[in-house]
């Protein structure tokens, strides 16, 4: 008995855990890395040796789960990967937003969050003279793919265009998925999105706020595939399932797609 499961099982919720308090103290150094789903109020650890990560809170010695998700332990930090929920902006996250308002010295960008993000004049790579008409650079309705620069506690969100990958999006189509499913769409080391890009021949930009920009001939198939990933996000071996699905779909579409893929490669 070197390792124990900290998450309570279906049959016994909190009662058993309080009874096991004494045993846990000596044993909770090894926590099983399981894919078990934890719910708000689940006891994760009863020790002061651990730190609370995302989605957890501490009450006395006990660390509880705050949200519905999957438990993850990295060294001494316990955190939860959410399975649902709203997008909470974090610095360095890429977002896709629409310019909602052009001000005297800044732009307001709506990205599906109650608070609009601000793009200050200083966040643009070009030099802008004081008093210049800012709509020359970005006007209302433009779509931006940009990283978040800073987020304050009162949800003042600043984005910047001074980044290699930041750009204005032209053409294409935007679909939105739940922001908690974005990691699955990207996949481990970007395998999932790379495969969708390669097989459909589309240009795809995935943002952390759940908006995905797709441009290319096979746009409908790419959209369908991403929606499928979102739906099956909890399944194991999803990359292979999607790979098979894409191959079959492309076969059904026949030579046409093959040709268009070839032309794009050239």
């Amino acid at each position, binding site marked *: 008995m070197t390792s124990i499961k900290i998450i309570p099982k279906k049959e016994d919720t909190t009662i058993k855990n309080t009874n096991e308090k004494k045993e846990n103290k000596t044993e909770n150094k090894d926590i099983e890395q399981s894919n078990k789903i934890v719910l*708000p109020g689940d006891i994760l650890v009863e020790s002061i040796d651990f730190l609370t990560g995302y989605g957890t809170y501490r009450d006395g010695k006990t660390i509880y789960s705050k*949200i519905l998700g999957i438990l993850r332990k990295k060294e001494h930090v316990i955190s939860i990967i959410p399975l*649902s*929920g709203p997008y909470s902006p974090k610095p360095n996250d890429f977002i896709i937003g629409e310019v909602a308002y052009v001000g005297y010295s800044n732009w307001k960008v709506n990205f599906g969050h109650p608070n609009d993000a601000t793009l200050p004049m200083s966040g643009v790579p070009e030099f802008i003279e004081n008093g210049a008409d800012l709509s020359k650079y970005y006007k209302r309705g433009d779509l931006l793919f940009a990283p978040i620069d800073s987020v304050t506690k009162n949800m003042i969100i600043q984005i910047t265009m001074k980044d290699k990958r930041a750009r204005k999006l032209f053409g294409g189509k935007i679909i939105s998925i739940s922001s908690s499913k974005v990691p699955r769409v990207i996949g481990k080391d970007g395998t999932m999105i790379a495969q969708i890009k390669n097989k459909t021949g589309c240009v795809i930009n995935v943002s952390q706020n759940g908006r995905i920009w797709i441009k290319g001939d096979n746009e409908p198939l790419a959209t369908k595939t991403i929606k499928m990933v979102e739906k099956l996000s909890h399944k194991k071996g999803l990359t292979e399932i999607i790979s098979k699905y894409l191959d079959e779909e492309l076969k059904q579409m026949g030579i046409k797609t093959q040709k268009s893929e070839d032309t794009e490669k050239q």
Partner: protein
Amino acid sequence: MASNIPEKYKTLIKNNKRIDGRTLDELRPVKIKVGVIPSADGSAYIEIGNTKVLAAVHGPKEMFPRHMINEDRAVLNVRYAMLPFSTSERVRPGPSRRSNEISKVTRHALESVIFLEEYPGMGIDLTLDIIQADAGTRATAITAASVALAHAGIPMKGLVAATAIGKINDRLAVDLNGPEDNFGQTDMPIAMISTNKNITLLQMDGDFSKEEFKTALSMAKKAIEPLFEAQRAALQKYYK
């Protein structure tokens, strides 16, 4: 009052069994389904006996109306409504004195559990529609609401479940049904947090002696446990 009771409801307990065949400390059958409304951020459907409730969560999103905004925390907006066809007599749609009161107590029962300070200046809309009412609608609604909130990914200290303890034929009973509520003596809904069993809602319609109240509380603590398990099972099943 006693003269108004129909003959078949005069004895609600026979041989330690209630009119629907339950024992005194037995809950009605519970059925919970998660994610029934695709357009909502979180939703749950619950059946406890003949009481059926649909709960939906929208948000956290921009606060509306704007003047109700709180810059430090989110505002929980609860709307409890009995649908017109939910009882044998049509319920007039729209807010009433009763639905306003229940919306308020439900809000208080859930507010203390949600980490509202994580979403400053935003609003969370919680809609509770009673599809069929057969006593204990507020308790059922609270049980459904916390499942819907968890499904919406809103941070909470724990789940909240609620049940009612009542007095029928001078005896204490758990989770009253329609006739027991209508022709019994007392009805006391109780809501508790799953982690520390703190009480977030307690109302009483009728009266209890001091001893009765104490036993009622301990009965509620025991009776609420299967509800937490049902909530947990429903949420885990949804992601399986």
